């Protein structure tokens, strides 16, 4: 009975994902989406993966991390190095896994000492950790130092990115709505209460942090192989802040919000490209206005839920 009810919602999500794919496919085939628009959409997609992962850490586990770009760099360079040497599709998928594994190890190394800190201190410590990752990459031979890597073979076409958005989002949303996610949210709400409920506060903070880092590495792999060039300067503190802006704008604690904000900012960013230097000013004004009139972000903590849609419908039916 419960399985059946959940099957209904899961099928709805599946239909939504498949429909999105075919819509995109058709629009490309008939020429509505040219390569310029496709580039914009893929960039939005990569930002969605990053923002959803960071939202898990900030919005659900309540840990203010500013080091997301560091983990992205790990994934990007793993993919770039591996597929430059062996340009096959198989090697590309292996490289994603390698990137994720290295990012998990890096997140453990960074997280175990820093997650004992709170708030601003944690933000500064994670920011420092991301800078260390970037500077290490900057000084290694295998990563080609500050000039970065180019002519990386392109295996991350838009369908690959699309599937990765779906996979990472499913993993994160399902994690949130399970034992681990509830424990992480308890930590966000009140650490002392969570601890006296028998919850290993440190363990669940670390779990959310590591899962966020792993998805950031996937996004990095996508970026390296789609844009075909990467440099250490792509993964500096500004990139971490750009991801943070998406999370805050969409709503801290709303996965739907991260999607909406990534799409809006992606479109705004592209539309303002003709304005030159004025672009950053307009971008900033848009952000300030939203923060004044909707401080909790565009979506607050609201989530799209088929379950709620269906139960609402049955309730109104019963009434009428």
């Amino acid at each position, binding site marked *: 009975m419960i*399985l059946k009810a*959940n099957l209904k919602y*899961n099928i709805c999500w599946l239909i939504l994902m498949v429909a999105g794919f075919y819509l995109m496919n058709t629009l490309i085939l008939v020429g509505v989406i040219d390569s310029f628009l496709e580039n914009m959409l893929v960039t939005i997609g990569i930002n969605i993966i990053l923002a959803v992962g960071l939202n898990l850490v900030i919005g659900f586990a309540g840990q203010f991390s500013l080091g997301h770009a560091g983990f992205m760099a790990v994934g990007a360079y793993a993919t770039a190095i591996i597929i430059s040497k062996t340009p096959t599709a198989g090697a590309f998928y292996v490289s994603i896994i390698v990137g994720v594994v290295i990012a998990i190890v890096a997140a453990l190394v960074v997280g175990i000492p820093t997650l004992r800190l709170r708030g601003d201190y944690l933000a500064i410590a994670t920011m420092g950790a991301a800078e260390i990752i970037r500077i290490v990459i900057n000084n290694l031979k295998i990563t080609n130092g500050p000039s970065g890597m180019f002519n990386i073979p392109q295996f991350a076409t838009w369908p690959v990115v699309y599937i990765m958005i779906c996979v990472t989002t499913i993993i994160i949303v399902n994690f949130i709505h399970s*034992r681990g996610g509830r424990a992480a*949210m308890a930590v966000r709400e009140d650490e*002392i209460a969570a601890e*006296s*409920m*028998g919850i290993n506060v440190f363990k669940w903070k670390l779990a959310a942090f590591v899962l966020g880092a792993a998805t950031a590495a996937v996004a990095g792999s996508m970026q390296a192989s789609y844009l075909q060039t990467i440099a250490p300067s792509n993964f500096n503190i500004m990139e971490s802040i750009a991801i943070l802006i998406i999370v805050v704008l969409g709503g801290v604690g709303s996965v739907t919000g991260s999607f909406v904000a990534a799409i809006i900012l992606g479109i705004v960013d592209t539309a303002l490209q003709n304005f030159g230097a004025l672009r950053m000013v307009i971008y900033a004004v848009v952000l300030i206005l939203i923060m004044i009139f909707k401080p909790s972000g565009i979506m607050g903590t609201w989530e799209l839920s088929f379950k709620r849609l269906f139960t609402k419908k049955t309730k109104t039916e019963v009434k009428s």
Partner: protein
Amino acid sequence: MSTLLKVEDLVKNFGGLTAVSDVTMQLNDDELVALIGPNGAGKTTLFNLLTGVIVPSSGSITFRGPNGTIPLNGKKAYKIANLGMARTFQNIRLFKELSVLDNVLIAMTAHYKEGFVQSVFRLPKFYRTEAQIRQEAIELLKIFDLQDDVDKLAKNLPYGIQRRLEIVRGLAMKPKVLFLDEPAAGMNPEETADLTRLIRQIQREFHITVLLIEHDMSLVMNLAERIYVLDHGSLLAEGTPAQIQQNPAVIKAYLGEEA
């Protein structure tokens, strides 16, 4: 009746201040014990020591586990909690932005397992576990008449109900001891009467030991089987409610010396 929790010569210093000094006490099975004392006597500090939130300076706390006694000194708070010690807080600490049901489910975290792969890929076993623990949580909420508030956010509940939910959340941990830190604080007489009934009900239906900090003397004298009186960090008296009411040292601590 055998000893469940034993405290011996417990001391806690904060710098030069001795908040708890040489406290020796014990809690037995199925007992309702009250801890009273004037403001600043060290009651909450003692609670925090017992639940592992702060570490004692010296002395020992031991707990009777399934395989012999377990020393609690220096153990992490969550490990102590999982041995069977639940608590509520003087200033309510619910998970405010989460639903009533989630609050209870979180307290049950240590009592069920969900693998990462299982939950992330929503394997059938995940749905079975979820259905089962949700059922269990709702049954518990029903006992305390909270079944209609299941989906409400904890912060939107009235004050008295929030206090009740905090107790229910503690019970969801299936504890052996429940520590209640001023459960009647800020309640009107009607709510306090409800609370008295609730605590009796818990004792009757769950067979657990309750240690209660309370300022409301009518509640304490009504409920407690035994009372410990704490003053300036040390134990002033111990006894039944009748004995405590007659104890000159206790009267002096509360009312001051006769002129």
